[in-house]
Structures are given as C-alpha cells and as structure tokens.
C-alpha cells in the first residue's frame, strides 16, 4: 500500500517535472500531503458523525486550484479543510458530555 502510493507520487512528480519543471514538483507533493491529511481528518470526523459540510467543498476547490497549477492556493485550501475536520473532531469530543448541560430538565 505504502509502496504503491509512493510509486503513484513518484510518477506524478516525474510527470509534473516533465511538463512544468522541477520547481513545481515539490508543490504537487505538498498538495498531495495536505490533501491526504485533510481527507483523513474528514473521515475521522465523519466516523464520529460530526462531519462539517464545509470540508468537501474546500477540498474540491483545492483540486481545481491544483489542476490549474496554483499549488499554493491548493495547499492553503487543503489546510483549511483539515482544520475544519479537526475542529469537527474536537466538537464531537466536547459535545459527548457537554450536551447534557443543555438538555431541558
């Protein structure tokens, strides 16, 4: 699995390298990493049933930016998506007890 991913990333880097030069290759990798981290956070939040509906649109925007070669923006958007995912996880953890204080009694 890890190996496969490595090969895919390597291939991407090579492709990018061929097309637009090595300067952007690192950015593609940075985008891939940021995107992976965001997706992991999203999935964790979703498993807790606390996913925010802001995360997927941010990642979609990031994908569009990456495709257009704007890796800086793509990484930024992925980072934001990851932060939303992490905030959702924190919310889930907090609410698992906090809700009891707001119940009508």
């Amino acid at each position, binding site marked *: 699995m890890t190996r496969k991913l490595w090969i895919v990333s390597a291939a991407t880097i090579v492709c990018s390298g061929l097309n637009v030069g090595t300067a952007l290759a690192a950015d593609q990798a940075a985008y891939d990493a940021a995107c992976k981290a965001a997706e992991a956070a999203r999935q964790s939040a979703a498993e807790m049933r*606390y996913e*925010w509906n802001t995360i997927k649109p941010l990642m979609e925007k990031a994908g569009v930016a990456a495709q257009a070669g704007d890796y800086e923006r793509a990484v930024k958007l992925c980072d934001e998506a990851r932060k939303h995912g992490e*905030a959702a996880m924190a919310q889930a953890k907090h*609410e*698992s007890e*906090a809700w009891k204080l*707001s*119940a*009508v*009694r």
Partner: protein
Amino acid sequence: MKRILVTILGMALVAGLAWATPEEDRQAFIDYHKKRFPNVAVEDYVNGVYAINPPAYQQWLQIEEFPPYELAMAEGKELFETPFANGKTYADCFPNGGVGIRQNYPYFDAETGQVKTLELEVNECREANGEAPYKYSKGKMAAISAYMAFTSRGQKLNIVIPDDPRAQAAYEDGKAYYYSKRGQLNFSCADCHVVNSGMMIRADMLSPALGHPTHFPVYRSKWDDMGTLHRRFGGCNKQVRAEPLPAQSEEYRNLEYFLTYMSNGMDVNGPGARK
C-alpha cells in the same frame, strides 16, 4: 473557588440528568414550552410555528383551504391500495391493515434491537414482497407516508419505551443527538427549536420543538415538494453546516424516537403544509 463550585455543580447536574426518565424529560419539555409561550395551548403545538405566529397562521389557513399535500395524499392512497406483483398489498404488512397506525411509530423492535419507523417498515414491506425499495426522503415514500398519516389524524401519539436497556439506550442516543452542537455554526437542534424558538432567524420564525413530529410528512413551499421528517433532519443539519446523515440512519431513527416521545399524547395531524 467560584469556578470549582460551578464545576462541581455542573457535574452534579450531569450526574443527575443521567437518571431522568423519558417521562420526566417529556414533562419538563412541556413545562418549558408552557413557560416560554404561556398563551399557547399544548394541543395547538401540532400546528408548529403557526401556533406562535398569528400572521403566518392566517396565510396557512388559506393554504389549508386546499393544501398542496392533497395531491400527494391521493397518489399515496393509490400506491397504498395497488397490489404488488405477487398480489399482496401494504395492508398485509401492517397491523389494522396499515390504517390509523401512525401514532405508534416509531417503536422499539425487540427482535432487531432497533428503532423502527413507519417509512422503514414501508420499505421492508416492499422488499418482503419482491419490490424495489423507495428512496426515503421524498417522492413515493413521502406520498405513502402522507396517506398513512392522514388515516391516523386525531389519534394520539403513543410512543413506548419498553423496559429494555437497548430501547433506553436508543432514546438516550436520540436525546444526545438533539442537544449536541454540530456543524461549523456549532448549533444543536435544541439551540434553534428550544432555546430560540419564536425568535427570528433572518426572515423566518423558529418553530417550537413540541409537536414537531406530529405533522410530518410535509409539503414545504421552500421545496415546492413533499418531504419526510428525515428529509427535514438533513436540512437542519445542512443549515448548521454539518454533513447530513442518510435518511433512516440509526442516528436519525433514534432522534425521531426521542423527539416523537416528547410529543406523546398529542394528535397526529400530518401531512402538513409549511412555508
């Protein structure tokens, strides 16, 4: 020192809450609404926001002259009465031939250990008779649900939480869902419909929680369409910027279990028309 005291008090409350029975919850829920809207009779909450918003009530009465859900009801009646390919009908799947039974849903099914909703059983009936299931949010499911609710109008909601830890857990789970903040806006269901009911959110008045499930499914002008209770749950989740869960997911069924229990004893008056 003060903070410690508050914390201790808070913990005591949390501990105390764990012991509230569903019936105590329901009584507290009604008392809350009586205090919040002293001029509204409990039985009027079946009309949702129209119980607390007189100008909107007047327009609603005009819509009720010939409510758009009657088209869905007619479709639902026809679907309900049309036999499946194997010759059986919905009437064979439900108690009392499926007529006048809405008030008993959702219920806890000891066999599966799950909360069963009316819509879930409509699809179980279809599949048991070799038919493809309907989608849960709208369309034919909402039409059948509308017809079955109509045949139950005036019956009193009678949600039972049996002496079974799994049933109580399902109720507690639904209650937790109702009061937990979620989404980017960090709102719970209760933040809008309990704490702030009657307040305006932009141009809309927030409807009170008591009586909410009595009038579903609804024809919503905003949708220009019919929708089930779970479609509305999804809409509420989206509005606080949370990803909605699938209609008939365990969480939504448990939520319906809790929320409907809160309205126990009130009349079924679905289907409804809402803005």
